[in-house]
């Protein structure tokens, strides 16, 4: 199916465990993004990638790791999950560039850290 998908949609994990959230897009968009959404904070950028093998930090990168070996995939790893990382995580992609970008968002992953 064309578009942007995230997996899993729901995840419960324990404090200290490593968790990887997957994101896949079929448009060959250059840019991909990871956001977290929490009540009272709206959407906050964690990391983004301008192309394969090019990533950069966003507003709240601590505790997260990303990689992008292929254009279509952008996994987000929580190396040692903490309760403060309980959130809804959204992946997005865009054609990117310095002007006129529109981000296409995935359906989100609801992560609970117990």
């Amino acid at each position, binding site marked *: 199916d064309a578009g942007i998908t995230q997996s899993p949609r729901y995840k419960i994990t324990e404090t200290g465990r490593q968790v990887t959230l997957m994101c896949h897009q079929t448009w060959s968009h250059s*840019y991909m*993004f990871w*956001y977290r959404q929490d009540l*009272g*904070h*709206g*959407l*906050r*950028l964690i990391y*983004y*990638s*301008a192309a394969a093998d*090019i*990533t*950069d*930090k*966003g*507003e709240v990168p601590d505790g997260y790791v990303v990689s992008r070996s292929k254009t279509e995939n952008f996994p987000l790893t929580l190396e040692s999950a903490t309760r403060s990382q309980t959130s809804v995580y*959204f992946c*997005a992609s865009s054609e*990117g*560039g*310095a*002007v*006129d*970008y*529109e*981000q*296409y*968002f*995935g*359906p*989100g992953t609801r992560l609970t850290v117990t």
Partner: protein
Amino acid sequence: LAKTTQPISMDSYEGQEVNITCSHNNIATNDYITWYQQFPSQGPRFIIQGYKTKVTNEVASLFIPADRKSSTLSLPRVSLSDTAVYYCLVGYLPYGGATNKLIFGTGTLLAVQP
């Protein structure tokens, strides 16, 4: 970094025009202004984007004054299905990776009543 401020909520009735304002006093020269709509349990969806003056598409208009320190999203003749959270996003992303320049507002919950 440009910080954005939006009203937390707004009420309207079907058929009315709704104007949602976003304040971004520290907007930078390269920053674009983008608005997104989000329904419960879904990712945000692009509505409109602009740099200055007025932009109109099939669903909304965006008004940006000359100083660009605020912007107003205008939704003509809203319906019940327009009930959602609306986010203002200010920023841009240069090619090749750089310091984060994307700042979402905390969103405005628009409730449309019959």
